[in-house]
């Protein structure tokens, strides 16, 4: 037991600045959003309208489809990052000599803003002149209108997101792989295990903690994402790449503040029902392995 005197070395008021800023500028707006999402609102007056905003949100295809797009986007980017980054990390922890260079090159996109990446890639994906199509045509293929075709637009943005955000998953994996005790591999080698068996039965289970961080991190990031999509397509063509965050912005720009806030609450609920149980499940899995 700590004595009173020891405890009192640490004044409670030290948490006040953080708590006040966090409470006023983050928590309070979230709490009040629950009310404002039930109103017709223009900042001056808020007229209570029950669940009308939510009904409208889910009955209008332009808005309800954003929930589906958000899920595709979040799961698409996370799964790609979790899988691709694992193999890149395995490659970069092997004995190759150029790993320093490769790691830096893979990492740098992380420091470039979403806006810059989004703009540059949207020009590289230009339907006729873009670099990607020039390459495709040189190889004998037909040009793809990556961002102008509703069927490929979302996938194109997902690919760009993975390009930009992959490295963070890679470095987390590398840290996890490097912390694995080398004697496991030596013991397995003596028992005659192949490289693939070592990968499957030693590396994969033991990087679970790193993997869990990557899953949670990229999933939450994906569910919230806005700037890359906004830079590349603005939600279009039509509504084919509209996600929750872009609907929130569009309804705000159109002056439907209550509706926009309802979209915000939908995002809050979506993230909560996915992220909290998932984290619980992943923690359980991690404990089971250990």
């Amino acid at each position: 037991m700590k004595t009173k005197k020891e405890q009192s070395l640490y004044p409670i008021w030290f948490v006040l600045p953080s708590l006040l800023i966090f409470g006023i500028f983050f928590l309070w707006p979230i709490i009040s959003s629950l009310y404002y999402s039930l109103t017709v609102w223009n900042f001056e007056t808020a007229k209570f309208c029950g669940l009308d905003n939510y009904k409208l949100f889910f009955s209008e295809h332009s808005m309800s489809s954003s929930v589906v797009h958000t899920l595709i986007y979040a799961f698409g980017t996370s799964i790609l990052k979790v899988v691709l980054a694992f193999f890149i990390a395995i490659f970069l922890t092997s004995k190759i000599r150029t790993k320093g260079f490769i790691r830096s090159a893979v990492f740098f996109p992380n420091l470039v803003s979403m806006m810059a990446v989004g703009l540059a890639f949207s020009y590289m994906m230009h339907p006729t002149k873009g670099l990607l199509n020039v390459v495709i045509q040189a190889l004998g293929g037909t040009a793809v209108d990556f961002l102008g075709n509703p069927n490929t637009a979302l996938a194109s943005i997902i690919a760009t997101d993975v390009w930009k955000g992959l490295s963070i998953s890679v470095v987390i994996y590398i840290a996890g792989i490097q912390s694995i005790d080398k004697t496991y591999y030596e013991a397995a080698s003596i028992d005659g295990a192949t490289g693939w068996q070592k990968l499957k039965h030693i590396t994969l289970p033991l990087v679970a903690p790193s993997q869990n961080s990557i899953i949670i991190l990229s999933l939450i990031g994906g569910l919230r994402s806005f700037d890359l999509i906004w830079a590349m397509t603005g939600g279009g063509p039509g509504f084919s790449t509209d996600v929750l965050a872009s609907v929130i912005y569009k309804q705000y720009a159109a002056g439907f503040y209550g509706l926009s806030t309802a979209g915000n609450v939908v995002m809050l609920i979506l993230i909560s029902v996915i992220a909290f149980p998932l984290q619980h499940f992943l923690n359980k899995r991690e404990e089971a392995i250990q």
Partner: protein
Amino acid sequence: MKKQKRLLLLGDILGVIITCILFLVPFYFMLVQSLKSKAEANKLSISWPSELHFENYIEVFKHGNYQLVTAFKNSGLLTLFTVLGLLVTAAMSAYVIQRRRDKLMSGIQALIMLGLMIPAAILPTIHLLQSLHIYKTMFSMVMIEIALQTPFAIMLYRGYMASIPRELEEAARIDGCNRWQIFTKVIFPLLKPIQATLIILVGVQTFNDFTNPLYFLPGSENTTVQLTLYNYQGQLASSFNLLFADIIIITVPMLILFIIFNKKIVDGMVAGSVKG
């Protein structure tokens, strides 16, 4: 053995080639685009410019009545104040949360850590700022950036704080330091390594932020660097060379930071994403 060596060499060569194609070509594309003439840039090819147009950079600075200068000033101030504010407030709370470990502190910690997951409510925040008469001010923008990054900063600090022995505080108390002095003179200076990480991560995050200034700091006199890119996209739709010059200009500070602090940034990102 020989076979393995050859395999490694093959891995080296393939790895470098694939990395160059996937990760360096896009940056090369941005660079050459920014140095071309208007007509040449509109072809969107990756060929080297037939003539180098360094004046594109001057022109993009002059565009819109030196908007980019204003933007750099605003982004610089926003980043500076956010980093400074967060360094101090998060260190204070992480210190007490990590040391006391009682029910109250666990509760406060759980509350703040919610911020790592749940998204901010945007319009109610604008409404709040309006009723406090601080909407569209640098002060409110700084407060919001601090609020949004507080959970991450506290998490990072708390993990590091655990490695600082309590005996130091006890010794300082016996030497006659009061509680405030113990924190400012003994603990705070010991946090330097994690602070370096935080400065870089929070700095990059704030400087590159697009969404929050879009909502909370509108107006041309308030513009930030990421918003110039958004505005120029419409205004300079036919002058790709200037648009890309802007991309290069706002990316170069990050490149310099990356070259100097490469290892620190990578380690910090790992530390920040693996729970402390």
